[in-house]
């Protein structure tokens, strides 16, 4: 768990003020939703994967879908890309039907389980996909953005898993897409590659692309997102900036090394939950200052105290618990 300065929410170091939209022709007039759905329904037999979803994804912003397995994230991605058809409701991609040629022209996608021809080189793959989109980025630029310099001549099968994911990322961004759909993009990437990718995604969003991201890494959602959609049971359970979601659950953590029994700690004012973390105890409190004062008074020997704000993780879990309750 990150510790930061007391009381301050963790910063998102990649946030920068929105840059003026790039001059590329495939940028939407800012504000109009690139993806728009109303009442979207998709079933698999008796299971309803999406039960009436309303969604707007705007350019220049990173929209993240969060949720446990079976929440409907992959289904929604499939619908947006036109790989699945909705059972009810409307879904439009920049005014076109999803999966239509016009929609595909302005979309770049990085899928969770996709493969590429192992015998072709990195350069051959990227050049080929660049050719699919009019107005694509120059080859060298795409390769640089995806961190593939030096690997141009290597065959896909000779790349590590992380490098292969970067190639797939390059294919997604090569066409300067108005809509960038990233399905678990940083799975199998090491920390450094992950951050580089975040940087690129952020830059692309600032250029004006609409980014739809799915991830189960809450750290990633926190670092990248302008907006988080929490999906559970086929519905949007929470919708807002990471800060807003975190704010829905007003609770903070008081941690320290204490020998007091958990039962006593649980009885302290404001405490809603108490856990032991090895030698440390962690108290979840809706009134952190009151809890802190009581702890200091109850245990003179308490050491290594820290007070942290809610992590998005906790907010999410909380909201999910509320939903399934």
């Amino acid at each position: 768990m990150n510790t930061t300065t007391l009381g301050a929410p963790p910063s998102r170091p990649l946030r920068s003020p929105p840059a003026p939209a790039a001059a590329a022709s495939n940028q939407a007039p800012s504000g109009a939703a690139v993806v728009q759905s109303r009442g979207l329904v998709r079933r698999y037999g008796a299971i309803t994967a999406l039960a009436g979803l309303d969604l707007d994804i705007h350019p220049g912003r990173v929209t993240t879908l969060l949720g446990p397995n079976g929440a409907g994230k992959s289904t929604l991605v499939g619908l947006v890309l036109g790989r699945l058809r909705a059972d009810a409701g409307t879904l439009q991609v920049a005014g076109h039907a999803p999966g239509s040629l016009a929609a595909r022209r302005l979309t770049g996608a990085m899928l969770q389980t996709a493969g590429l021809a192992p015998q072709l080189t990195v350069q051959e793959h990227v050049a080929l996909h660049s050719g699919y989109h009019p107005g694509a980025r120059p080859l060298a630029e795409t390769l640089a953005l995806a961190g593939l310099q030096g690997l141009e001549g290597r065959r896909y099968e000779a790349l590590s898993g992380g490098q292969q994911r970067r190639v797939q990322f390059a294919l997604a961004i090569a066409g300067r897409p108005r809509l960038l759909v990233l399905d678990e993009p940083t799975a199998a990437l090491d920390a450094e590659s992950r951050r580089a990718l975040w940087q690129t995604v952020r830059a692309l969003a600032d250029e004006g692309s609409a980014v739809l991201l799915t991830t189960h890494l809450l750290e990633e959602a926190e670092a990248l997102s302008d907006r988080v959609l929490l999906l559970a049971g086929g519905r949007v359970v929470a919708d807002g900036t990471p800060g807003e979601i975190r704010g829905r659950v007003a609770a903070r953590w008081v941690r320290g090394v204490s020998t007091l029994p958990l039962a006593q700690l649980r009885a302290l004012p404001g405490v809603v939950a108490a856990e032991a973390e090895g030698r440390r105890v962690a108290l979840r409190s809706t009134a952190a200052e009151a809890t802190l004062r009581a702890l200091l008074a109850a245990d003179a020997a308490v050491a290594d105290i820290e007070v942290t704000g809610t992590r998005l993780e906790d907010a999410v879990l909380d909201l999910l618990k509320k939903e399934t309750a």
Partner: protein
Amino acid sequence: MATPGTPGRRWRGPALAAAVAAALVGFFFALPEPGEERLAPPAPGFVLRDVRVFDGERVIERATVVVREGRIAAVGPDVAVPPGLPVQDGQGGTLLPGLIDAHVHTWGDGLAETLNFGVTTVLDMFSDPGPHQALRRTRESLSPRAHADKFSAGALATAPGGHGTQFGVKVPTLTTPAEAPAWVDARLAEGSDFIKIVYEPRTAEGLGPPFPSLDRATMAALISAAQARQRPAVVHVSRHVPAEEALAAGADGLVHVHVDRVAEPALVQLARERGAFVIPALAVIAGFDPTPPPAGQLREPLRLAADPAVRPFLTPDQRRGLESAPTTKLVMFRLDTALASVRALHEGGVEILAGSDAPNPGTAHGASLHHELELLVRAGLTPVQALRAATSAPARRFGLADRGRIAPGQRADLLLVAGDPTADIRATRAIQRIWKNGAAVERHRYPEAP
């Protein structure tokens, strides 16, 4: 790799396409057309000195033969030996024209197998026209060759479901006289050198073979159509009455001797008056004859296979074929009846040609022609007459102008045998040397199968 639209590289695709197109055009123009077959030049030649020669008609006791570039240049007792050619000695043997088997069916290796016995030309009475077309283009050339030359009837003429349709080879059939000219034209277009007709009608009482046959009028129409196009027309018959009808219709010859009874004087006279020939194919009758041989003797095919002058040069398949040849319960196939018919025909002045009907059961390509010569002598021909029947006679009757004789200008298809076959016909088997198109042919020996 060029990114699309990069200036300067834009022409690489079209330039490559143009180069490929040019290469393709060049390739297709370089492929050989008919007439451009690459044929080796004829062998330079040789001289054979002091050898007895049967020149296809008569015997020259002692002669020198000069072969140059695939043809006979000179033959005679007083021929001078020209310089520059290798000279060989006749060593007391007899030089014959390469033998001609007047009735065969060739498939697979038959042409090579028959050459192994000194048979340098065959007349094929029914086989697949496809391979024949290819062979025909180079038949005229005098390039050295490892197989006999073939003149073929191609597909035979028969009724739907008639004899000839049972072998799995597609045979175009016909039923009416009106179809005959077109049928003959089609065969000639396919490459047939002559026309063969199957005629096996039932009697007026309905007796006869259990398969359909062309009727008499159609058979006659086919003969007329072939002869109008200057091609010989020969007929397959197996019984006396159809043989007479075919002769009456003007057939150039019969490719079998009838087997139902001995030839009667009326048939002999008809054949003589029409100038028709008969190819008795006694070898195949001998193969089918169920009569047990005299005590201590083998059946004819086995006797042939056991002959030490023949056996080593038969392929294992040929030996197997001869030794396991079945007989037929059809009482008609009696060698003695056939021999008596041939005797009557020959004594009645009808021309006899030697043919084996190989590779039917009881026969083998090449070897069975030697067997046929022996049987013809048994039927009453002299050895010289038998040799004529396998050399100059078939060449003359089928218009093969450059074969069948040893004379200046003739193709140098030759056979040197030990001894004197004009005295003992079996000497034809003692082959010392074979030449095809004036080039020596290596004779293959085959080991005994384990």
